[in-house]
């Protein structure tokens, strides 16, 4: 490092001297990590030709035919034909106020400027995640309910809400899915609910989405697809209360194997399917509590174990391991069922460590089984 530092330093000095001697122009600024173009408050959309062309009331908005229909169904607009131009445009968009972006977005939708629409969708979603945009959500709901847009245009509206993935956005979509007549959008709306609850924007789970879904769940919708979607949405959102609600749905009715096979008891079935979608480690204690059952065939007990292993997180594996240490030898098939599906490296390391340290197990058979499974599932890269 020091040697290369000296050499680079000397080279820098020489280069600077040559540059000064030649009286050249300033070298291009290097791009620093995480740097955004300097826009901020100094940015005025009035001077951005791309934005100017799409302003709702500008003459250019009506005559901007630079990008043809169908997401650039011909040549893309020159303003957006490079990665750099698109990034610059996007970075400026996210500096704009939400109401401006909403108007701009609608204009793009009307004019079918799909390249810009894609960028504007991300930018507007970003802004809508901030507080104080209730009016815009109402406007979006109105647009979605109205008859002025084609189905394809409504898809864009649903996409916008999907990308936004806030409680308000979820309410709009849920309301449409529950109350509107079955339409071409119905499947899209259900998919949107799943995608929203899976969207970990801001690098986190969004348990705040759960209450909106729990409300619908408690109304017990009769339609299976909606029921399953709502249950899965609750699981995806990952709120502790939501996890408990799903477990309760199974526990209250305790469906028998025959009932499950016959498709009886829909809420319990939906909850059983959804429990395996929980990923938020904060729900682990609620699931782990159910592992204390002594009846190894208890449906809630098995559902909890299945949910924990499906989570694929060390916190969940830890709970399963604690159970395995106390489990009787009759539980060996469950050890096989659960530990064979471990799929994260931290859990594997943890299990190896425990076995290597010869930690005590109630059943030696289970301990041996665990060792065998670990050996078999350990990834061996050639």
């Amino acid at each position: 490092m020091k040697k290369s530092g000296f050499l680079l330093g000397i080279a820098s000095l020489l280069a600077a001297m040559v540059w000064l001697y030649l009286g050249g122009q300033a070298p291009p600024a290097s791009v620093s990590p995480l740097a955004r173009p300097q826009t901020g408050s100094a940015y005025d959309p009035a001077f951005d030709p791309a934005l100017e062309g799409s302003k709702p009331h500008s003459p250019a908005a009506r005559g901007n035919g630079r990008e043809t229909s169908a997401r650039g169904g011909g040549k893309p607009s020159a303003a957006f034909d490079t990665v750099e131009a698109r990034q610059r445009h996007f970075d400026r968009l996210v500096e704009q106020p939400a109401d401006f972006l909403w108007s701009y977005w609608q204009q793009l939708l009307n004019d079918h400027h799909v390249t810009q629409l894609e960028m504007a969708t991300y930018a507007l979603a970003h802004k809508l995640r901030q507080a104080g945009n209730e009016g815009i959500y109402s406007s979006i709901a109105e647009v979605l309910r109205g008859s002025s847009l084609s189905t394809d245009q409504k898809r864009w509206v649903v996409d916008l809400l999907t990308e936004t993935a806030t409680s308000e956005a979820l309410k709009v979509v849920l309301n449409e899915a529950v109350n509107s007549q079955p339409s071409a959008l119905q499947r899209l709306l259900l998919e949107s609910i799943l995608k929203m609850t899976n969207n970990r924007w801001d690098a986190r789970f969004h348990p705040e989405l759960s209450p909106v879904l729990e409300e619908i769940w408690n109304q017990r919708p009769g339609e299976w697809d909606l029921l399953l979607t709502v249950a899965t949405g609750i699981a995806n959102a990952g709120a502790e209360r939501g996890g408990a609600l799903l477990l309760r749905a199974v526990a209250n009715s305790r469906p028998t194997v025959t009932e499950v096979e016959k498709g009886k008891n829909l809420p319990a079935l939906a909850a059983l399917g959804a429990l395996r979608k929980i990923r938020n480690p904060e729900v682990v204690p609620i699931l782990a509590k159910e592992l204390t059952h002594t009846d190894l065939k208890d449906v809630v007990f098995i559902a909890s174990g299945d949910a924990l292993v499906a989570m694929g997180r060390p916190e969940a594996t830890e709970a399963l391991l604690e159970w395995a240490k106390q489990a009787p030898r009759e539980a060996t098939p469950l050890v096989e069922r659960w530990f064979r599906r471990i799929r994260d490296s931290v859990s594997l390391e943890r299990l190896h460590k425990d076995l290597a340290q010869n930690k005590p197990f109630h059943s030696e058979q289970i301990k041996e089984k665990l060792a065998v499974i670990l050996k078999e599932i350990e990834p061996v890269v050639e």
Partner: protein
Amino acid sequence: MNTLQAKNTSLSVRVVGLLALVFIIGTQAATAQEPAKVLLLLHGMNSSPDTWNDFVAAKFQNSCAIIANGVLTNNSTPNQQGVLCYRIRFGSFDLRSGRVGLEGVKATSSSSGDFSSIRDLGREVRRAVRGILNRYGNVETVLVAHSRGGLAARAFLQQRAGKASVVGLLTTGAPHRGSRLGRIYKYLKAHPRGTCCQGDWKVVDFLRGKRKCRVGLISIENPIPLDVRRPTISDLADDSPAIDNLNPDITRLPPAIQYGQIVYGGLDLGILRTDIPVFDEYSIFGDGICDQLSTEAERFMLGDKTPSKYPGDGAVPAASQRYFNLSGFSGDRTKLHRLGVDSGILHTQETAQEAHISAVLATMMGSWWTGQ
């Protein structure tokens, strides 16, 4: 101290000062030269960036921003090993491709690249790599690609420009030689709805979530619809021109980078789901729950063989998931890293296999990935 001594001292101080300055500048320059490390995740057909959620949660604490059409829609935070994660959302070329599928099905705003050619998907990768380069200046990028994303990655790396910052490629469950399942497109094209084959079209409708399957007291829909009328299905057939065009150019893969492949086996071809509520498994072949393809369709797709003769992950045979042995690929043997898994993991579950992906990345990239 006389004047001469004072001058010498002054000169010495200046020289030492200059050397110190040079050292500081040099050290800073050398530090600034440390490239950013980026893992770029590529999803497959009928999928989205969310498919990587489990992997991203395990390795990046959920921080992995989306890149669409080369635009970084947010910033990611480096993980403990100093690696940044980004994921592509494919589909920027869908609406402009002009491609139309069977029964006139057209691209929508969220078609996931299913109407784009493999070449255009490669362009999307190039744009994403460029976007990352613009953001970070000095960067090393490793591509991790699932399913069709693996073909998109190769389409990018097999062309000439813009790939200098890429230092590794890992594909998982990628159909490098296509899949016989893709032949369903050609079969359906030759047997339009209403002319025959009502049962086969029932399978199509069930898969795309438009037909319910009644079992017991409930009617279920496929919870994750798959529309096999989309043109990408045709591209991914083992006998498709798209695959035929892509594979000879494998000779152009950069020789100096690290390569990895994860191959999944243990499931018969045609098993698409094992998590449909109430039931554990659904296959489009044979006898089972819901609808299955006719014997004629099965023969068209599989020839005289049975689904068990194409073991893999249900969608892609294991033999097709390998690219190291494609004719013309002459990568440095020390730079090829492979993992085979035979435990019956479904195609759609492969992106969640963090331990597998991390193990191969650790072998491929060493401290770049492990931070040790």
